[in-house]
């Protein structure tokens, strides 16, 4: 951050990108602020949801979704309870957590990126071994984790992809969340959290290969489930925009037929995910896969690549069918039956989906 040249960074953290809005909010905000919060809970909610301030400053909405969810999230952090943002990929979990940290602490960079290889030193502390050997255990030889730094400074720390962290490392957070203190036995002491410290975790509980949170840890979080896009049009728009960006990045040519096929893929995904057809008349069984917006994006991108390199240059149903099938059928027995029921019961009935139905039969 500090060692990077201004203007060359690809993406500035939220508190820098929206510095003006935050400053304006801080100016007009006359409500009670919890200890060491930069803004009051009301102002934080306004920052996320957007609005026009008393002095005429327009705050852009950062999160488009139910107001209720943002209010619960902010209120949770105000009660010094940790917040767990849960949802399938592509529901703006990371985005929301970054903006919450920026608005509350003015710093969204205290971050633990969860992976299967995340070790305990990433959530507790590590050692500067040169100093440790030379001077013995001391504060100076300690390398604090973002969590420890946030505790000392009274700031928010973010843990991304909490469920990808191995369970034993996850459980290191229990003490931090319940005692608000981190013991350092090597120094015979502990670091206690300063007012304003709190933790926002994001997690994905439907993906494969994640570590279920222990119930002890789960209990210490307040859970906010971020929903998938509310309407078909919203989701189509998100998919179309992301596919466009990816397509340019992968240098795929723009193909005709895209808009219609994207709508159909998103419709199939939404219907199977929600267990009911778009017209709300027929229920369908849901497969085991998540069928997230992110998967719809990858199915369409894959279809574009197929159409561009092996097809006739037009995105057609047959370019997408294999991808859709792969996304839906995760469990070979159960999901296949679900897919066939859906294909026979729903797709077959749609007159203008003939090509899609035929392509789906072909690949099954």
């Amino acid at each position, binding site marked *: 951050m500090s060692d990077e040249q201004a203007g060359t960074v690809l993406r500035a953290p939220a508190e820098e990108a929206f510095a003006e809005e935050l400053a304006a909010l801080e100016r007009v905000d006359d409500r009670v602020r919890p200890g060491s919060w930069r803004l009051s809970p009301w102002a934080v909610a306004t920052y996320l949801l957007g609005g026009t301030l008393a002095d005429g400053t327009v705050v852009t909405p950062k999160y488009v979704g139910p107001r209720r969810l943002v209010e619960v999230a902010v209120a949770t952090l105000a009660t010094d309870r940790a917040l767990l943002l849960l949802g399938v990929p592509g529901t703006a979990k990371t985005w929301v957590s970054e903006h919450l940290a920026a608005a509350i602490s003015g710093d969204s960079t205290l971050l633990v990126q969860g992976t299967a290889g995340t070790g305990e030193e990433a959530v507790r502390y590590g050692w500067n071994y040169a100093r440790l050997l030379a001077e013995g255990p001391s504060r100076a030889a300690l390398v604090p984790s973002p969590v420890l730094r946030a505790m000392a400074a009274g700031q928010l720390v973010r843990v991304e992809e909490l469920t990808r962290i191995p369970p034993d490392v996850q459980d290191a957070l229990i003490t931090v969340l319940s005692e608000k203190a981190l013991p350092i036995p090597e120094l015979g002491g502990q670091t206690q959290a300063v007012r304003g410290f709190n933790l926002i975790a994001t997690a994905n509980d439907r993906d494969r290969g994640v570590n279920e949170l222990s119930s002890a840890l789960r209990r210490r979080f*307040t859970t906010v489930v971020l929903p998938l896009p509310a309407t078909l049009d919203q989701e189509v728009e998100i998919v179309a925009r992301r596919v466009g960006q990816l397509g340019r990045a992968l240098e795929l040519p723009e193909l005709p037929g895209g808009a219609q096929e994207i709508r159909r893929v998103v419709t199939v995904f939404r219907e199977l995910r929600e267990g009911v057809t778009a017209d709300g008349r027929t229920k369908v*069984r849901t497969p085991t896969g998540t069928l997230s917006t992110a998967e719809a994006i990858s199915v369409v991108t894959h279809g574009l690549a197929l159409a561009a390199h092996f097809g006739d240059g037009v995105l057609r149903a047959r370019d997408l069918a294999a991808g859709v099938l792969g996304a839906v059928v995760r469990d070979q027995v159960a999901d296949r039956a679900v897919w066939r029921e859906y294909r*026979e019961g729903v797709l077959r009935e749609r007159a203008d989906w003939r090509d899609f139905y035929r392509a789906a039969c072909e690949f099954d």
Partner: protein
Amino acid sequence: MNEGEREAEMTGEVTLLGVRHHGPGSARAVAAALTALRPDAVLIEGPPEADELLALAGRADLVPPVALLAHPVGEPARALSWPFAAFSPEWVAIRHALAQGVPVRFVDLPAAARFALAEEPAGSDERAGQAEPDPIAVLAAAAGQPDPEAWWEDVVEHRLPDRDPLAPFEAIAEAMAELRADDPVGTPGSPGVHPGTGAGVGAARPGPGPAGTRPGFGELREAYMRLQIRAARRAGHRRIAVVCGAWHVPALAAPRAAGADRLLLAALPKRPRTEVSWVPWSHGRLALRSGYGAGIESPGWYQHLFDSADRGPAALARWFARAAELLRGADHPVSAAQVIEAVRLAETLAALRGRPVAGLAETLDAARAVLCEGSEIALALVREQLVVGEVLGQVPADAPAVPLQHDLTRLQRTLRLRPEPTGRELVLDLRKELDAARSLLLHRLRLLELDWGRPVAGRGSGTFKEVWQLCWDPGLAVAVVTAGQWGSTVEAAAAGRLAQLAGQAATPAELARLAEQCLLADLPAALPAVLAALADRAALGSDTAALADALPALVRALRYGDVRGTDRGALEQVARGLAERVRIGLGAACTGLSGAGAAAMRDRLEAVHRAVALLESGAGSRLDDRSASDTASGSPADRWAAALAGLADREPTGGPATGVPGLLRGRAVRLLLDDGRLTFGQARRRLGLALSGAGEPADAASWIEGFLAGGGALLLHDAQLLGLLDDWLLAVPEQEFTALLPLLRRAFAELEAGVRRGIGARIAAGHPAAAGGGPQAEPPLDQQRADAALPTVRLLLGLPGGTPAPSPPARIPRQSDRRAA
């Protein structure tokens, strides 16, 4: 008439307690106000016809939620209801007055007047003024709160009675007066003239009649209430408490000449005679908008507010503790620490949203985020149990008859079916109008669990004949009261009950039976709900056996039912969808079954097979266009046959979850053979394969059982089949044979005696296949005797007698055909 003198005579002091119907805060405030006022008369907004019934409200066996149901004599279908919950201000006022021995009366416009107004052509659109103005929405909007419920909760419901118990009512009266400031109702001398009021109040209020000449419904009610209050004062009461909707307070407080009110009411049309009764109500039904024109969606929450003596964290904690207990009972662990955190979160949320205390929205948000850990499924349980909290009221059995009883009595009279305690048998011929109507009534009553008549099974063979055993148990009178909760006529109640049963039904088969009952009881209105539930259950259920159980009843309903136009289409669509799902799931459902499971599945296989055939013939498409090879197209019967063929081709059971039992494979082959979809040659090949030495003898024996279950006559007609069977039996090793004997005995025991004898004779005569084999081994046809039968056959088939009919293809009768014959 000297009005001034009159007014001076009346010294009684009137206190108007404006409430929100079903508002727990209002109820608490009313209780406090009445205790402080100690009135000597209590007047309540409600139908005065029910005054006589008010005494019953003091009894311990009248348990809310209950409702007053009023209907014109002989027309229970037009009933209006005034529901009361324990937390209704009106109920609190009634109970208070009865406990204190103070006269209590209803003072609203009589229900009869509402019925009369509804009959008028111009008044019909108003539905006798069921739309009540929503002053709360207007006030909330003025206060900048988009959610009127939340606003009222904050300002009124959540507040505890202040030191001065009358203060809240004064505040409400003031606010309402402000709201109705530009409203001429209640202003003397301008009856029924409305200037164009703005949106909000004006839009919600029942407007004046055409051209402003007729008084609005609200005006009539208020005029009537004013007159009643005057009457109470004239009767000498000193302290009169009036409990009415907050909206009416300014109009009732306005000084207005009695003459003008009387004039207004004089124009009322003639009123029909009306009957009123108490009926048990439920929390769920409080949401309905009727007499009071106010519905509430969260009775359980209101009950909690009403029961809580304080509004602080303790009340919240109690609610969350109940939620936690509920969740723990449903295997969702919740710790005490989480309850504490939920209370804190709810309070913080309330502060963030600028509300004085946590309301329902905050409480639910906190419960979702903390107790339920984000799970909507867990929250649904909380909603169902604590927010709605289904409770059923009770009404004493000796309370005046409910409308349903009236309707039943009327039907009993017109259908000439007297309720008699001694049992008798009733034979109905459904082709007669009277008998058909009787059958309908008895079927509907059975749906309502009023088992006056029980169908006697096995009597009479035609579908037009029904036999019932009638016996009127006096206890049924109580059941009629209970059934009153579902509707005020037999038809409406049966339909309501059916919809409820459809919601509770656990299996598709139950739903299919309900669909059938819809037709028997002629309740087409209830059918769509049942079918929708069935389609949903079928779509979500993965148990093919359960779906297979549902199909036959549904197809029966489709075939014999006199469903009208659109209904038939919906029924058929659901049946076809069901058949399709059974077909897709057939292979998996027949895999890895135990002996008993296979036997049960065989019955289902047969039932579905018959049902699919009926479905086919019902749809009118012919069997001729066969293209069974393509499973994606073709008629349901073709697709079903393809699925059966697939089943027949499966491997035998070689262990758990690996194969299809011989019983089912054999049965599938036989069903296909009987339908003419397999030739005898193909069937012979299959039998040979099943009986070949590579297979397990036990599997082969059960294959035979399945194959022969459709009747054994084909063994007499096709000597090669018998030969194959004979060869196999001789080749079975002795030890195996002993083990197989019970299986074989069972297979052959099911055959008809004549067939068994015939087979025995064939075998005794020598080796069947060796004696030439094939169908030609049969004795030559006696042409003369065959010709003699032809005219009769022609007659039966409806063929013209002159031309010699082509002899019908040889078809071996099935056992099922014989049973039906």
